[in-house]
């Protein structure tokens, strides 16, 4: 049975329809990617899963239980955390405080310390800048912090919304490597990317979204070979 499943999800912003019946599954241990043009509804799907927007219709199930109408903090407690689009670190707080906030829902002191070490092992830059305010970090470092903050919740499912956006090319490469490292440590990942090429190379499966619908779902390897995908999203 899948760890996360979305069934016929409809989301509106006021009168604007953003999702028109999305269904998808993420199995435990996988990296699944959602690709699609700007405005296709990728971020909205992420927001719906984490409870930041309420679906008008449809069902979200995590680990066998419905989380459709839970408030965001309870969804985090169930084991779903996200690195939001555009990073959104707490700019006036230090790197350390940002990470501390990532563990806000947890009470296991020793576990938190262990996870802090794990995050610093993945992102040594963050350790060097521990007491610096997050707003003074470079874009790449802020992205690392946003991912690190999400990891501090010790999620079973990590949602990443465009982690490579606006990063220097050499950093893009290393972010994708780190995403694979995190996955190997046992974290299931739902990855939203515009950089479809890279995303499909690290993912196991992928979904292609267009104007709020899933138009293609296949293994990442097959999507990489798919003529339409190559033309529309890989720029060939």
């Amino acid at each position, binding site marked *: 049975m899948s760890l996360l499943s979305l069934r016929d999800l409809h989301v509106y912003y006021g009168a604007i329809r953003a999702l028109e019946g999305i269904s998808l599954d993420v199995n435990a241990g996988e990296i699944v990617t959602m690709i699609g043009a700007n405005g296709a509804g990728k971020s909205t799907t992420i927001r719906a899963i984490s409870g930041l927007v309420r679906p008008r219709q449809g069902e979200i199930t995590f680990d066998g239980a419905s989380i459709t109408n839970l408030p965001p903090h309870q969804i985090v407690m169930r084991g779903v955390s996200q690195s939001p689009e555009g990073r959104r670190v707490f700019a006036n707080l230090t790197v350390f405080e940002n990470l501390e906030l990532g563990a*806000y829902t947890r009470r296991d002191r020793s576990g938190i310390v262990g996870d802090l070490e794990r995050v610093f092992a993945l992102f040594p830059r963050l350790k060097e800048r521990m007491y610096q305010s997050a707003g003074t970090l470079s874009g790449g470092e802020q992205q690392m912090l946003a991912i690190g903050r*999400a990891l501090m919740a010790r999620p079973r499912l990590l949602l990443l919304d465009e982690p490579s956006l606006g990063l220097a090319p050499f950093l893009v490469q290393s972010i994708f490597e780190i995403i694979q490292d995190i996955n190997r440590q046992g974290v299931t990942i739902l990855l939203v990317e515009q950089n479809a090429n890279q995303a499909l190379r690290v993912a196991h499966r992928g979904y292609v979204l267009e104007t709020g619908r899933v138009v293609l779902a296949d293994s990442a390897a097959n999507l990489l070979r798919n003529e339409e995908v190559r033309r529309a999203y890989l720029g060939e």
Partner: protein
Amino acid sequence: MRFWVNRLLGVTGALALLYAISVWATENLQEYYFKVIILCGIYIILAVSLNLVNGITGQFSIGHGGFYAVGAYVGAAWTVLWQPEAARALPLLQLNTLHGHIVNLLIALMLGAFAAGCTGFLVGLPSLRLRGDYLAIVTLGFGEVIRVVLLNIDAVGGARGLIGIPSLVQSGNLGFFWVFLFVVLLIAISRNLLQSSYGLAFLAVREDEVAADATGVNTTRVKVTAFVLAAVFAGIAGVLYAHFFINISPDTFDMNTSIIITTMVVLGGSGSITGSVLAATFLTAMPELLRDFKEYRMVIFSTLLILIMLTRPQGLFGHGELGYATFQRLIRSGRGKTL
């Protein structure tokens, strides 16, 4: 164990010191200056408590005068309306001894704080879901509603207000003691909040509410907590005001009062406790010190405010604090720019 003994000694020492200052101030200061100092203390409570909402949690509430009024009226309702009844049944509550005064003041404080806190919860729970300007409008409206309601309750004097409230705060030379006891308590709570990981959640809400939600902070609870705590202390300030200055009317708590309190927080630098304290002192004492300039004083006062906001839009202290660490830094670096 040792920790608690030290704590206890510290608290006892602080109380004794407050008491000593209180007795000295009452006996040696001219009544007029004494009153200005008490008023400063009351406004410090109002500004530092509003700073919990506007500064630390980043919500723009501008109806603090409403909670101030609820505290003042409920506290005074006890001493003026209900206490005489209660004292007939319970001689402990009679007002002919100092301890009778203290017991009644404590009851008034508890009732005023409780009523203001409940009002804060009722106003906060629905309206803190609103953002920015909307919250400002709702809270401003709330302040006015309270004033109009008070105007129309005959039992508390309507437009005349409640007059001749027993001056319980001043009994036994304790005036300064009571007011600054709550000043110190509130500052200690605010500081502890800022330094705890629980308080980090309040700052996170100020920084980016959506990101706070996404990291698992229960943002509604954080905002309501800040709002209720602020209302409780505004209520306490109201009870102290009523039982020191002995006359209150709906006009004491009009929109100007709310706006002045908000100005104190903004002027001091939203989020800075030190800033709120200094701005509250400055804005309370300044109009008094300028009394010699007669009708020009409001002009001078406003000009000063505009100048400060032009030269330091982030407020006097920004998010910074003035404390022991700052002095150390100043001394070590030998320059005055580290603030």
